[in-house]
């Protein structure tokens, strides 16, 4: 089975600035992927590269085994909601659906209709609330019955209730079609609820990638009195250290149980983990790959 989305040394430069660099990743089939990272981290660029809207400056990207730039036919299997869910504002809801029906070879009215029963078909898209527009955008991509769903900041502009509803509709649709989903968001809390796989981008590079369970299982927070750091048994690597008064807090990757009683060992939350990897000044120095069990770069 080919990976729904795979990149190898992928880079994209706009004029002189790299929006994305050295991006290598493989998204497992059926995963719900959270594409996290601060603003301008390269999330939108990665998704635009995956849809063929942009072409890579270097490296390769493959979507469902195909190069989206060369085989535009792959778009039939990809559902993409761009940032802000751009739609034709002068179209009515019914006309927007008609547009999708006519520009897609495969179109499932049932999926779309099921989502849109609450909307008046004659309303203009420009007059819809953000939540309803998100619902319409979701109906448009799910109606394609895509194998890969790419959502760029789908929660921006939605209030928490609408966001939750959107997520529920999304997960229902995905459960039905079995699609792989990539959700780009700079709000970790949004991703945390549903994602089982994480790709963290910062400054155009992949900082952390992996299964959420695995990542949380191999990272620990250690707290103890401030002291010079030697080796700690069970600790593979210190990702980040923070001093506050006489207290020392470490985020570490582990390769065994930590038994040293002078440390309080705690599990780490996803948000805390991602924030630690995001902060550029606290990055661990690059290590030879054989010592690194998880793929992180930077």
């Amino acid at each position: 089975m080919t990976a729904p989305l795979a990149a190898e040394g992928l880079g994209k430069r706009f004029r002189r600035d790299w929006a994305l660099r050295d991006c290598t990743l493989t998204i497992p089939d059926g995963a719900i992927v959270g594409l996290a990272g601060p603003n301008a981290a390269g999330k939108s660029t990665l998704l635009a590269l995956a849809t063929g809207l942009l072409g890579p400056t270097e490296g390769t990207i493959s979507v469902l085994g195909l190069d989206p730039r060369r085989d535009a036919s792959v778009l039939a299997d990809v559902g993409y909601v761009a940032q802000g869910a751009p739609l034709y504002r002068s179209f009515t809801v019914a006309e927007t659906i008609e547009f999708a029906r006519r520009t897609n070879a495969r179109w499932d009215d049932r999926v779309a209709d099921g989502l849109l029963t609450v909307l008046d078909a004659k309303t203009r898209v420009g007059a819809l609330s953000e939540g309803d527009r998100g619902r319409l955008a979701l109906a448009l991509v799910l109606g394609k019955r895509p194998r890969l769903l790419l959502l760029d900041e789908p929660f921006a502009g939605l209030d928490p209730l609408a966001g939750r509803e959107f997520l529920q509709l999304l997960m229902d649709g995905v459960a039905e079609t079995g699609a792989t989903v990539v959700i780009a968001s700079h709000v970790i809390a949004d991703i945390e609820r549903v994602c089982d796989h994480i790709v963290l981008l910062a400054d155009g590079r992949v900082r952390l990638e992996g299964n959420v369970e695995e990542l949380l299982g191999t990272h620990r927070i250690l707290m103890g009195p401030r002291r010079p750091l030697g080796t700690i048994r069970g600790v593979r690597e210190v990702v980040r250290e923070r001093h506050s008064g006489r207290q020392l807090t470490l985020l570490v990757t582990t390769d065994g149980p930590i038994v040293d009683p002078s440390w309080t060992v705690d599990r780490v939350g996803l948000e805390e983990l991602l924030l630690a990897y995001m902060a550029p000044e606290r990055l661990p120095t690059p290590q030879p790959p054989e010592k690194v069990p998880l793929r992180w770069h930077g």
Partner: protein
Amino acid sequence: MAWVTWRQHRPQLLAAAALLAALAAAAVGTDIPIRAAYHRDALSGCLPPSARSGCDLIVRHFQGEFDSWAAALRGLTVLPALAGLFIGAPLLARELEHGTHRFAWTQSITRRHWLLAKTSLLAAATLAAAAVASALVMWWRTPFDTLEGRMAPSAFDLEGVVVPGYALYALALGTLAGLLLRRTVAAMTVTLIVFAASRLAVLEFLRPRFLSPLTRTVVASDGGRQAGDWVLNDTLVDAGGRQISTAREDLAILHAQHAGIDPHTYLVSVGWKRVISYQPASRFWTFQLFEAGLFVCLAAAVVFVTLALVRGNPG
């Protein structure tokens, strides 16, 4: 795609239809007095090639009465440009401006197919509208064309097959400008400038040379104008064939006036002649086909570039 194109460009297509309807109404309305004067016995007896004495007065009377109308018609030169400004320029610029290309170009249909389908449908509509406008102008100008010919730019640019050619070129130009500039207003401005520049360049430098111009030598006193030709050059030469400057001509006329001789007779007596280079009226359709073909080829080249670039990186 036909439905998509119709839905997205409905306002422009309806506006074009309304514009044509208004044009037709104006043409019919203004045509009534013109035809009435034209069909008066005095004028119809004077239609070329008739050259009864006094006919020049009757024709001049008709022209004096209606030439300002024919001049106003020249305003329609901008008509083909409207296709570029209001259909071509927004075609891609509006999508790129609002980000809706990210929606349209990520459906199953490829963006080349999308663009090709839309531009060909819009081109067909533009061609039809331009052909109707051109036919209307030709019908309205019939009396003027009979009396003055239609080879001169004031008529040539508004009639025949060049009008659809111009419109097609403007449409293609607007589309490319929209893709490159990504802003509707900027694309409209650039389209207008480039369209006007290419029209002017062809008119000034190419059209006079489509076929080598004919020359005619007449005596200096002759007005030298023959209705229907497009006069490119009208110069006075002396007996030895050397060109005479306007200043020298004026001086000679002044000299004759002071001497109490009729200037016309004087110029003939010194052996001066007029050499007129012109494109004859008979070349009208040949030139129409040349120029229309040229603009259709330009349009095709621009569309080709647009299709190649749309695969690029519009983001």
